[in-house]
């Protein structure tokens, strides 16, 4: 019985992971586009104010059960990877 329950939950997690994967890549596509524009306008990849705004908004809107600290850490990783993507796709490919 409990074994079956584990399997059901895992299936739900898998489904959510796929949604996350899709959403993260959707976000990445927007990041690349933004990177190209920033590059054309000669703006820096690193925008600390914008990053802070994201952290504030995400922690404010956090419904839980994830702790706000965990939300910050997760979004730090997403933003770190986005910055790397911007650098590689928009700036380095152009050089």
């Amino acid at each position, binding site marked *: 019985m409990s074994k079956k329950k584990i399997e059901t939950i895992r299936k739900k997690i898998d489904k959510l992971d796929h949604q996350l994967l899709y959403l993260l890549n959707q976000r990445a596509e927007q990041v690349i586009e933004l990177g190209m524009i920033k590059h054309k306008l000669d703006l820096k*990849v*690193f925008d*600390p104010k914008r990053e*802070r705004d994201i952290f504030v908004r995400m922690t404010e809107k956090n419904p839980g059960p994830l702790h706000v*600290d965990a939300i*910050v*850490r997760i979004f*730090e*990783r997403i933003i*770190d990877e986005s*910055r*790397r993507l911007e*650098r590689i796709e928009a700036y380095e490919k152009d050089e």
Partner: protein
Amino acid sequence: MIVVFNENATPVQIQKVTEKLLDKGFDLHRSTGTSQVVFGVVGDTLAVDTRDFEVLEGVHEVIRISEPYKLASRSFKKEDTIVKVGKATFGGKKVGMIAGPCSIESRDQIKKIAKMIKKTGTKVLRGGAYKPRTSPYAFQGMGEEGLKYLREAGDMNDMAVVSEVMDRMDIIPALKYVDMIQVGARNMQNFALLKELGKINIPILLKRGMSATLQELLMAAEYIMAGGNHQIILCERGIRTFENYTRNTLDISAVPVLQKLTHLPVITDPSHGVGIRDKVAPMARASIAAGADGLILEVHYDPEKAFSDGAQTLYVNQYEQLVKELKIIASAVNRTL
């Protein structure tokens, strides 16, 4: 590289460090902990001086996780490098032996010693022509003339020859005579010399400076390798310690430590390592037991009359006996000699 911030680092301080790292082309993995912020820095940090970041406001510590040397490191090349010097090899299953007088004193002297050493199966002959002596009044070596005699003695006995070069001006003349160039302990960080040795294509015997850390020795090897010459044999030759019963303290632990850090062969020089004749053979035996890829030893038919380092030089019969013992020890550690 990891950057750890102070517990009370301000967002502005963290931002400044972020900007500096990004400007240098690194990627970051930030992690905001409950009390401290930590950055994982991703990218080629070889050229970074960690102090440049340690001095920034808000930074507690900068930790290197990769070694500052690359070509010399075991992570760059997994398999052992085998350096061939004439018919001898260093770094393979076979232990390589180098022997000869401290200084080349005359044509007859080096020929006589070469002939005697050859009988033990030793394939590399050593002999100093440019001598880095502590006193400017001590015998300074025969120079190029000595190298000529060394080459003759090597050729007559089918042995390769190695000699030390102290000045980069002497490299090109030495190439006419020697099969391997030795960098002495006092020149281990003579970077101008090391850079020139990177441009040639014969093996280099690089001795550890008497106050050098193993990392500094590997950085010296990296200098030569960065120039394109990857045939390097590292040599532990004794370091300065508080103990003054022996001339130096032969750091045998350098052998297994270096062999883990680098793919380059590692040998020891027990003659300089202890500086006293009756201590040389025990240290030579210990080196082979510890896994050294070879030895360099000072041998003379009449050490009492040697021009330099006579007190640490073995008699030929002592050397013959030592080689016999070393063969047994080598087989015990799955090597041959």
